[in-house]
């Protein structure tokens, strides 16, 4: 029952994040969505990742969005979509139907019990290569952001 409520909440937040005209409000709906997803993950038995999602997804990313919206400006946009809404909905519905066709029977099974969690160990030992790559990724992302946001002329005359 809780699950259904949370599901409704998640989807509602997501829809609102898309529908709202103002970007800041949109970012806040996204944060709400994120928080509910974190709760859902907690209920699914993943407390550690729920915490991380809460802090990164709902926290850090929202801050980033607010920051970006501050720079870019939050003017109301004409909301004429390029692709007519019914067509978009129809396409999405068909795609979701087809994925669901394959997915739902597969997941409709009994849930096994939860073993002891050892996330830390797994992260730093079993999947340490992934952690290394995350490091590379963060570095690359930082470089890209620096590069993109840097003001060309100013940098040229820097001593």
């Amino acid at each position, binding site marked *: 029952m809780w699950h259904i409520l949370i599901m409704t909440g998640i989807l509602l937040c997501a829809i609102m994040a898309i529908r709202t005209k103002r970007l800041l409000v949109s970012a806040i709906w996204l944060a709400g969505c994120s928080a509910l997803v974190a709760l859902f993950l907690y209920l699914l038995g993943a407390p550690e990742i729920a915490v991380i999602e809460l802090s990164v997804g709902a926290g850090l990313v929202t801050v980033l969005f607010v920051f970006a919206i501050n720079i870019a400006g939050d003017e109301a946009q004409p909301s004429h979509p390029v692709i007519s809404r019914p067509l978009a909905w129809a396409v999405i519905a068909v795609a979701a139907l087809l994925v669901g066709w394959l997915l739902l029977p*597969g997941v409709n099974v009994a849930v096994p019990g939860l073993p002891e969690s050892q996330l830390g160990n797994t992260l730093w030992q079993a999947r340490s290569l992934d952690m290394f790559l995350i490091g590379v990724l963060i570095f690359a992302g930082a470089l*890209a952001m620096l590069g993109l946001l840097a003001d060309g002329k100013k940098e040229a005359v820097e001593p």
Partner: protein
Amino acid sequence: MNANTAFTLVIGLPLLGTPIIYLLGRLWARQNGSSSAANPARWLAVLILVATGVFTYFAGVGATADYTGISHDFGGLTLTMDGLGLFLAVTVLALGILVTLFSAQYMQGEVGEEKFYALLTAMIGAIIGLGCATDLFNLWLWFEVMAVTSYFLVAFYRDQKASLEAGWKYLVQSATGSTLVMLGIALAFAATGSLRFDELRLAAASADPLLLAAGALFIIGFGVKTALVPLHTWLPDAHSQAPSGISAMLSGIVIEAGLVAMLRSLGILYATSQVWGYLLLGFGALNLLVGNLMALRQTQVKRLLAYSSLSHVGYMLIGFGMAFTFAMPNGAIGGFFHLFNHALMKGLAFLAAGALLYALYIAKGHHGPLVLDDLNGASKRYPLTAFCFSLAVLALGGLPPLAGFMSKWQIFVSGFETGNTVAILLVIFAALNSVLSLGYYAPIVNRLYRGQPSQTVQEGAKISPWMAAPMVILALAIVLLGVWPSLLTNLTSRAALGLFMLMGG
């Protein structure tokens, strides 16, 4: 040298070298201002890549000692340089080193030069790693690193609106595809409980709907990067707006890295369904036709070359489709051969177009697109570049004695070997498309060799030997592989073996 150590260095060196390149370049730029002499970051990048190449040689000696390749455990994850991994590493390093050399003059004095070299090196490292991954999630992560490093490279001219636009479309479409791949990985994990290729392959023996969905998501997700036809729309924009060296890398190796990732993930699911091969063949035919028709009426040179990449991916897809559908070894070998040749040919074409673009526009501070009319009579002033460019486009069109002919031949052979009428018709369709492609390649050559140089050509700047040298090397390689195709058989057949082992053959 110990092959295992060499392999570790091959993986680690480009990625660990990235921050060093950046810091060195940054410090140097701070002290000297960015528009004067050569930034040492480029030489460090070349040095690191060449060193990686040397280590790849030693690792390759070890990797070819037996058919399983050479493995190294990083924590709980294993990287294995099998035939396919070695092949991809050789291809990306060969093209990458030449592109870095080429960029030395091309990128001279651009703001953010050091970031360019750092990210280029990281991208090459990521592609090497992608070829060696043995874990589905790890494969995706290498793929994602490659994507993130390339976003900035595509949008490098961040003062140009068109460049930003291209980068934006590339990022969003890429990220969408990447998300679909992630979902596919989650589904595969949900169905089998494992991510390692070998375990997954054993577990994925039946047509579990989750695995079928995963396969479909892999095709679409990786297909965005590979530029399968309805998903290809980012490609002409990104390829035409990126700095030319990056266009060469994108077209020559990045989209093919997506293809390798797709083949790896579909290879694991080989036993689940027959349709993967048919889908590859279908997308191959579609890519051929759409790529050629779209290129036929282009007036911008780099955009034309970008569309022709679509059709060349089509040839590769047909080769791999033959391997998947009819278990034809020649299909896979030919596919990999064409992949390599395409890296050379399209790399050369983009570098030559880039050299002209540089001489005619960028050196003068313009950022206009290079249009076909600008090529008129270019051979008068730039005989070497014009010759290399002609060689590249004729090779792309599949004319002997150039490399593109031989790899197409091998792919076509695999189609006929099946003895299947549909496969044979598909090959004939592909051959006719090859003819159609001459409809846009040949006029380029004619333009280059006109007697009267266009106004833009007459006013063009000089092309330095640093730009010419990589082109000459690529041109020689194209001719050499055209007259001596078996030079590469060892590498390509091992790559095919790697693929077939994955498929459980």
